[in-house]
């Protein structure tokens, strides 16, 4: 039994079933990280063979060719050749090909084999989706295939529990020395002509010899594509799917969100009962519980949203939606794939930004990430409803349109239009150098497997909870410190001035105040914006604190609205609304941008351009409305 852990890499084209095979092998024993300095994800898992040997399985990025320029390809080449400093040399490369798509996938297998020929790293070709091939009447002579390619060929059905048993048996018996010996035999028997200039030609020959293919495509796919890609019918179906998606996000999530809020309130009252008022008590209730609760409350929405996105992606529908929407999105310099992430951002920018992983072009992905925070997320709603309720009269226009509703709609459109304008400007700057290209595969439709969905969902949830909550906690602790220190003196308390005014947050607020004054913001608003950085809706409770509205529950909002209506001008309220359309008043979003782009610089770019837009928009809103109202 070899003591050293074997290192195996999984290589394959997109849609070859690589993720399903990887999940089947490694189960929940997976780690996700980034390769140093690039945005390419490094996925690594552990597979334990029947005889108890542990194998490190590296899931390489999906590609059509290892010879192309590009981050994914370069990383893959360096790992296969053992040149990558963060990955130890491989003992085996498993090259996955789809049995129904051999014409496209075998070329990659030939390329890889040639790439590592001098390294003497054994390559096995795994022919996946054998069940689909069978149901379509595709006959593959695996022995002939093995001879033609010149390596071991193993059939699998990665989506079935017992579908990869033959691969498991192979890995169980595998030891680097032994396989080399096995491998060298068939190679000596016949000379494999590897013609590096024409792998395509070679694939055609191999298929002609080893594969009988009754039809090029599956009839189910043909039929479904006729419906889903129909210029009118397809678009109507897409609208219906999107409608159901958002109904689900908001309706299904609500009880869970209420439940989380209830739990956090319960936790708070338990602590209130057990602890006397002290600094620690204040820290636990304000910073830890309320602060985390304000962000964690969005988890149900995020999970449900991701469930739908993953379902659509796994089923093969998402690329179809991208196809339908590409002509609209292309006008703004975006790809069709940007649509779903942007739409998700209306619930919360965090899953939206994470969903941009389905955009394969890096520049398109970056543009989408940058404009995702401009889509009106649900955390803005409490701020919008507070201000609209306080300042916009409940009037009807033309007898049926609510003025308040119209203002809300205008705020949504302000976000959408500015996002599209920003995307257009970015694309105009980029396209001078290179024309945008969009090439993507429309894979076969298939029923998503619960296991794969669950694993992918779990991966996303862990990223959100582990990586993001760490930052959220740190930020909340800092904000709590700024709001709570220095402790107000007896005189301040006696004079009835809110304690926050003499705190660091108050001091900073007063200090920034001259900068914000041209926007019509008073010091109370400026101070409330600081804790409001944790999450947008926190600004509502922060305003409550600043205006010393003590009461809890729904009364807070109403009494706050009355105070605001008396103390602020309409121009100030409109200016603050404009601020909230643009300002990145959500450090969690900036943290996700930093994680997803793997660049502090890019998250700073996002923050500064959004603050700048917010400032300009608020300034314009304040000046124009002051002028009009007089």
């Amino acid at each position, binding site marked *: 039994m070899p003591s050293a852990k074997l290192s195996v890499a999984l290589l394959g084209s997109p849609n070859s079933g690589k993720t399903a095979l990887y999940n089947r092998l490694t189960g929940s024993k997976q780690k996700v990280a980034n390769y140093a300095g690039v945005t390419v994800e490094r996925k690594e898992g552990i597979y334990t063979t029947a005889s108890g040997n542990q194998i490190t399985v590296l899931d390489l990025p999906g590609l*059509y*060719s290892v*010879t*192309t*320029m*590009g981050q994914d390809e370069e990383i893959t080449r360096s790992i296969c050749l053992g040149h990558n400093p963060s990955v130890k040399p491989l003992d085996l490369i498993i090259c996955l090909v789809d049995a*129904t*798509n*051999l*014409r*496209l996938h075998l*070329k990659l297998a030939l390329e890889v084999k040639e790439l590592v020929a001098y390294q003497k790293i054994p390559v096995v070709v795994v022919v996946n989706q054998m069940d689909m091939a069978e149901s379509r009447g595709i006959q593959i002579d695996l022995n002939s295939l093995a001879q033609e390619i010149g390596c071991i060929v193993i059939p699998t059905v990665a989506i079935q529990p017992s579908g990869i048993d033959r691969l498991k048996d192979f890995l169980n018996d595998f030891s680097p020395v032994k396989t080399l010996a096995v491998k060298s035999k068939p190679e000596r028997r016949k000379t494999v002509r590897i013609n590096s200039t024409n792998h*395509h030609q070679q694939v055609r020959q191999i298929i*002609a010899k080893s594969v009988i*293919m009754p039809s*090029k*495509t599956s009839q189910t*796919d043909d039929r479904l*594509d006729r419906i889903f*890609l129909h*210029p009118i019918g397809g*678009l109507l179906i897409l609208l219906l799917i999107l409608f159901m998606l958002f109904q689900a996000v908001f309706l299904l999530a609500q009880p869970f969100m209420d439940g989380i809020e209830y739990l956090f309130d319960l936790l708070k009252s338990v602590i209130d009962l057990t602890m006397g008022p002290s600094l620690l008590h204040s820290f636990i209730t304000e910073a830890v519980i309320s602060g985390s609760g304000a962000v964690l409350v969005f988890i149900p929405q995020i999970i449900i949203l991701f469930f739908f996105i993953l379902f659509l992606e796994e089923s093969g529908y998402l*690329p179809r939606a*991208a*196809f*339908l929407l*590409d*002509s*609209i999105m*292309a006008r703004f310099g975006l790809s*069709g794939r940007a649509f779903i992430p942007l739409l998700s951002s209306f619930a919360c920018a965090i899953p939206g930004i994470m969903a941009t992983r389905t955009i394969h072009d890096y520049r398109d992905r970056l543009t989408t990430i940058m404009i995702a925070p401009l889509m009106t997320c649900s955390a803005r709603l409490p701020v919008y409803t507070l201000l609209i309720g306080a300042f916009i009269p409940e009037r009807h226009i033309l007898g049926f349109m609510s003025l308040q509703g119209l203002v809300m709609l205008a705020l949504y459109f302000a976000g959408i239009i500015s996002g599209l304008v920003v995307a257009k400007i970015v694309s105009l700057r980029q396209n001078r150098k290179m*024309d*945008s*290209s*969009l*090439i*993507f*595969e*429309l894979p076969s439709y298939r029923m998503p497997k619960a296991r794969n969905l669950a694993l992918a969902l779990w991966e996303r949830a862990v990223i959100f909870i582990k990586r993001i909550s760490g930052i959220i906690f740190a930020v909340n602790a800092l904000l709590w410190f700024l709001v709570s220190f220095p402790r107000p003196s007896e005189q301040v308390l006696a004079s009835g001035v809110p304690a926050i005014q003499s705190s660091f947050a108050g001091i900073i607020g007063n200090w920034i105040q001259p900068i914000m004054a041209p926007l019509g913001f008073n010091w109370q608003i400026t101070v409330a914006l600081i804790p409001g950085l944790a999450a947008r809706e926190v600004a509502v409770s922060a305003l409550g604190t600043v205006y010393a509205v003590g009461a809890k529950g729904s009364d807070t909002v109403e009494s706050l609205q009355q105070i605001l209506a008396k103390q602020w001008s309409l121009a100030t309220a409109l200016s603050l609304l404009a601020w909230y359309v643009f300002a990145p008043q959500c450090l969690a979003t900036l943290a996700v941008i930093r994680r997803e782009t793997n660049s502090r610089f890019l998250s700073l770019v996002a923050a500064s351009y959004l603050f700048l837009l917010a400032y300009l928009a608020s300034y314009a809103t304040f000046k124009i409305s002051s002028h009009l109202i007089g």
Partner: protein
Amino acid sequence: MNHSNSSTAAAAATTLDSIVLNQPALVVAVNDNDIDDMVSKRLRDIGFVEGEPVTLIARGLFGGGPLLAQIGYTRFALRRAEAKRIIVKSLS
């Protein structure tokens, strides 16, 4: 596979974006825009090489937008700009 038929068709070369939907055609070449052309390299990677049968399956909305092409056993969405680089000859 349909290789032998291609000689019988008196086909004029045209570009992929201008062929009739669902009519079989053969790829003649992919034009490079410059020396290290990533896009044409990628098109060749996914199978747009000389002699490969290709069919246009669908066009995007409003006649514009992307095209859906069947190359080999796979369907790929392409934009017009990419399709214009692919020289094909019709087999019908």
